Every structure is written in C-alpha cells, then in structure tokens.
C-alpha cells in the first residue's frame, strides 16, 4: 500500500469513527406527527357495522400513535353527528360527544383500545365522528390535532 492510499484510508476510517462517536448526541430532525385509526370489531381495518339498534352496544377499537418526539397526552372523542355535520383537518365537529377516552403515550408508542358505543336515538345515515385532541401544557387545555375519522350508521329503534 502506498503512502497516499494509506492516508486516504486513515482519513475515511477517522471520519466514520468520529461520526459514530457523536451520533447519539446529534439532534433528531424528523417531522413530528400523531396517528389516529378506527378498527373494526376484529381489530382489523374493515368489518365496520353499518346498522345498529337503539341501545345496542357497538364494539370498535381505537388506535393512537405518538411520533411527536416527546411524551403526549391524548383525548379521543367519539361524537354523534348527521350528514350535515362538518368536520375537517382544521375544524372539529360541532356535535354531542358520546364517548371520551384518554391516553398518555411515550414517544414512538402506539396503543389500541376498545370502544363500546351505545346510541339512544334512531336515525338514518348517522355519522360517528372520531377525533384526536392533544393536551398543551402551555394553555392547560386539549387542542384539536386535525386528525379525524367517520363511520356512517343506520340506527333503528328495534
């Protein structure tokens, strides 16, 4: 091996070794985000109910993932709206809340939890709206994350 090759090899090995040594203290610049999902009764995407009767228990599963780069406190809301109820990434639905659950998740932690929903009024094309809110310690309140999902149901009296 000539002198030049040896020098280049030494420089490459040194740079790699220095990078490996300082890697643990380098700031992570990944985009922070949260996840919301609604799973059917078999813990799968699909098999969602389309009909229900008043007083019947509707079993679903909620899914929340935290990739915000820090521990987060989530509020999972289930609201009951109708076809005209508006919900978007910027606006939460103005509809009565039928179920609320709370979860605290460490960074990169996900959780799946059961949702038991009972509806007390019959209706056609009732809209079950699922929203994810996140606690902000600066304002001491939950803020809408812009994550939502919906499920249409026909609810009969019996």
């Amino acid at each position: 091996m000539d002198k030049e090759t040896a020098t280049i090899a030494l420089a490459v090995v040194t740079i790699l070794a220095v990078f490996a040594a300082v890697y643990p203290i380098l700031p992570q610049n990944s985009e922070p985000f949260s996840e919301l999902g609604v799973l059917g009764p078999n813990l799968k995407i699909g098999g969602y109910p389309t009909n229900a009767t008043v007083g019947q228990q509707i079993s679903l599963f909620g899914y929340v993932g935290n990739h915000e780069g820090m521990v987060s406190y989530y509020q999972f809301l289930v609201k009951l709206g109708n076809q005209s109820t508006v919900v978007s990434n910027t606006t939460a639905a103005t509809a009565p809340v039928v179920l609320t659950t709370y979860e605290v998740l460490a960074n990169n932690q996900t959780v799946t939890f059961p949702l038991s929903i009972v509806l007390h009024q019959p209706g056609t094309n009732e809209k079950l709206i699922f929203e994810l809110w996140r606690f902000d310690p600066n304002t001491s309140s939950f803020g809408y994350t812009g994550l939502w999902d919906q499920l249409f149901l026909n609810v009969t009296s019996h």
Partner: protein
Amino acid sequence: MGFRLSCGNLFVFASLLLLILSSPLVSRTQAASQSDFGGAQSVVQSAFSAVQNADRLGGNVTALVAQLNGALSLIQKASAENATNPAQAAKDLANATSVAQKVASAAGPVGQQGSAARQLQFYLSVGSAAVIVAVASLIYIFGDRIYRRLWLRAYGSYEVRKIG
C-alpha cells in the same frame, strides 16, 4: 323541672335519630360531582406536565407514563360507576388523584437523572471523538516510523542468503 324518660319522649327521640341518620347528608355517600372529576383531571394534567419536562430532559418516563394511564383508567372507571356505586367511584377518584400526585413528585428526580445521563453521554461522545482524532493524527505522523521499527524488531535477526 326534671326530664323524665317516658314512652312518648323515647318515641320522639328515636324518630329524630332516624330522621337524622336517613338524611342524605349523613348516611349516604354523595356521588362525585363534576368538580371532583375536574379536580382529578387537573391533578393528572399537572402530573403530565411534570412528566413531559422529565422527558425533555432525557429521563426514562416509561414507568411514569404507565402510572399516569393507570390514574386515567381509575377516573374513567369512577365516571362509569358514579351513578350506581358512588362510594366506589369516590374511592377510585381519590386513588387516581393519589397516583397522579406520586407521578408528579417522582418526575423531578427522573428528569434530573435524565439530564445527568445526557450530560455524561455528551462528554463521552466528545471525548471519544477527540481521542479518535488524536490517535489518527499520531498514526499519520508517526505511523510509518513505528511500522518500520516494529518490522525491524520482528525480522531484524533474519539472515539473507544468496541462493545458487
């Protein structure tokens, strides 16, 4: 005039006692109010803020997160059973508050440990990098000379003979 314990007086006394004991203020456990639930939620929120600070400082908050979720489960259980079993609901709410308070007080030391560990990691990383650069520089400057000396020590006693 002295007090005489007649049958009539006894009846009045017993009636009054029954009336007092059957009063909802005395005998029944009150259902937890919205403000009770709000108070418990507020304690959980404070505990969460403390845990988030500990997390930012690099502390291992896994156990604290699990305990906070336990407190939240107790609050939701209390909410579900408040109408049917107010005594148990009050107990669960008190337990949830106690757990959240313990989490809040434990978060400080966890944050300090995380901060110390992060500082140690910083010094280790910077120190390792400095040592690597120093060793590389020494190899670059003296490597050739050291290699030749080692070679001479290993093969210096060898004799070279002409063959043929």
